């Protein structure tokens, strides 16, 4: 019997060793984030006030603000979301529910997987070549949003496909057995039940897009923008317009890059403050994603 207890002790020791290694590995990540946040906060927090959030950039660091970048990021995100979500969800539904299993579908799937691995600057070059030179669009919010939409499309597609796959086959069969068409099954079952997964995927895609810099630089977002896009609302009917889509823009990470590349430390504080705002945005979006996922899991237990 002594052998058995020895054996158990040896195996428990292995367990503990791995436990410790795992803990250390986990802390490397957490610690890095904590140091990063702390450093940013030390530099940037004193700079964050109402003036900073509501002023345009300026050549005086203490007068400069991030309003135009903030509004730019917001506008670009709206375009990105309005493009990536319908395209991504439709593509995912097609691939999961409609596509026949053949070589053509396989090629599409491989391409989508590869799309997720393309360096983001390549998307910027594509936007410049195709959208700006090819289609003759301006270097505008529209082009920026479309570029980022392409960039995050694979994320939306993959998340939606996962959500669709999580719906049990017996639910589909129950609906089909009642005489539903494919579209009715998609519309009244699959989309509603996968909404949580789609929402989470969308938010994760958006928090990826909001931090992207490289693809926007190629379309001219690295520039001094001290004005806001024209208001989408007007006094005359139809009371809304889309002129803001054509406006030049900059975004938060580019504003940050702009300031960090200047020699004076005052601007570096501005950059740190911008970084903080960006991180708060991202964390807030992730928090929403986690909450949505939690709510949906509570409601839909298969």
């Amino acid at each position, binding site marked *: 019997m002594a052998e058995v207890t020895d054996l158990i002790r040896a195996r428990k020791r292995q367990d503990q060793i791995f436990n410790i290694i795992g803990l250390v590995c986990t802390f490397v990540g957490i610690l890095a984030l904590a140091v990063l946040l702390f450093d940013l906060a030390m530099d940037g927090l004193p700079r964050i006030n109402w003036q900073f959030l509501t002023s345009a950039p300026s050549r005086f660091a203490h007068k400069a603000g991030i309003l135009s970048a903030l509004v730019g990021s917001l506008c670009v995100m709206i375009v990105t979301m309005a493009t990536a979500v319908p395209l991504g969800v439709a593509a995912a539904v097609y691939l999961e529910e409609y596509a*026949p*299993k053949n070589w053509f579908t396989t090629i599409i799937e491989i391409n989508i997987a590869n799309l997720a691995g393309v360096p983001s600057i390549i998307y910027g070059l594509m936007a410049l070549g195709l959208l700006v030179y090819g289609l003759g669009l301006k270097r505008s919010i529209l082009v920026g949003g479309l570029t980022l939409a392409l960039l995050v499309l694979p994320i939306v597609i993959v998340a939606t496909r996962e959500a669709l796959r999580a719906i*049990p086959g*017996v*639910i*589909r*069969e*129950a*609906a*089909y*057995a*009642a*005489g*539903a*068409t494919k579209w*009715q099954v998609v519309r009244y*079952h699959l989309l509603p*039940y996968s909404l949580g997964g789609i929402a989470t995927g969308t938010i994760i895609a958006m928090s990826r897009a909001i931090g992207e810099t490289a693809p926007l630089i190629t379309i001219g977002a690295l520039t001094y923008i001290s004005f806001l896009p024209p208001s989408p609302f007007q006094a005359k009917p139809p009371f809304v317009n889309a002129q803001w889509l054509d406006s030049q823009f900059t975004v938060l990470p580019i504003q940050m890059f702009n300031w960090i590349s200047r020699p004076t430390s005052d601007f570096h504080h501005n950059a740190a403050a911008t970084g903080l705002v960006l991180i708060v945005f991202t964390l807030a979006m992730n928090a929403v994603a986690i909450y949505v996922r939690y709510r949906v899991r509570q*409601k*839909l*237990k298969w």
Partner: protein
Amino acid sequence: MSASRPTTRAGAVAASRTDYASSGQLKAEVRGLNFHYGQRHALKNVDLPIPERTVTALIGPSGCGKSTLLRCFNRMHDLYPGNRYEGEIILQPSGVNILSPSVDPMEMRLRTGMVFQKPNPFPKSVFENVAYGLRLRYVKKRSLLDEKVEAALRSAALWDEVKDRLHQSAFKLSGGQQQRLCVARALATDPEILLLDEPTSALDPIATSRIEDMVFTLKEQVTILMVTHNMEQAARVADFTAFMYLGELVERGTTSQFFQNPQNELTEKYLTGSFG
């Protein structure tokens, strides 16, 4: 295989249950059905008459093709690629061949109701679950919906238990209640045939006996074809029982004759537990 021929020596009990000598009362008739899952020949030359307003039970060991046969009736196999039917299932009184390529699978699913092995209610309210088939038919009138839903829930012996919580999630019901809800969902659209695929395999004995009682009453309204892994269940609720083995229909007869005096050696062996 002569098992499908109606026998004349039906027991007195069975004869009083159903007068099935008159062939005009057939609801459906399977003739020379072969079914392939890709390369796999899953049903081999199956013949089976289904008399109207009776319960026909399909029994046999796992993988014998009983569920496969059931799912031919509402063309569920059409949902997956590579499946192939040969032969016919004639639906009476119209004489339509269910398996004909010219018949839209959707039509057969609208004309039949199906209940699955595990309860699979939709994550919607009790009411919306039962009303689902009606909504697919664009029934909008509230009074008609209410009436049909109540009738279906009463037929499924569930009304008294859920009438006060029609608008709560169906997931809050117990397993047995969920399964009866699935029966109600299938019944709400007045199907011509009710297909039950091992409806009690995931349920406890009490829930099982409630489903069995319900099936026994339901056959006054609708023709029922039921797959079961449980021989006693077939003996309790079915008017006719068919035994399948390795994709073939070995024997079919009135339940009393089938259990008391099986004609085929294989059937007898299965019933006595020598294999299966």
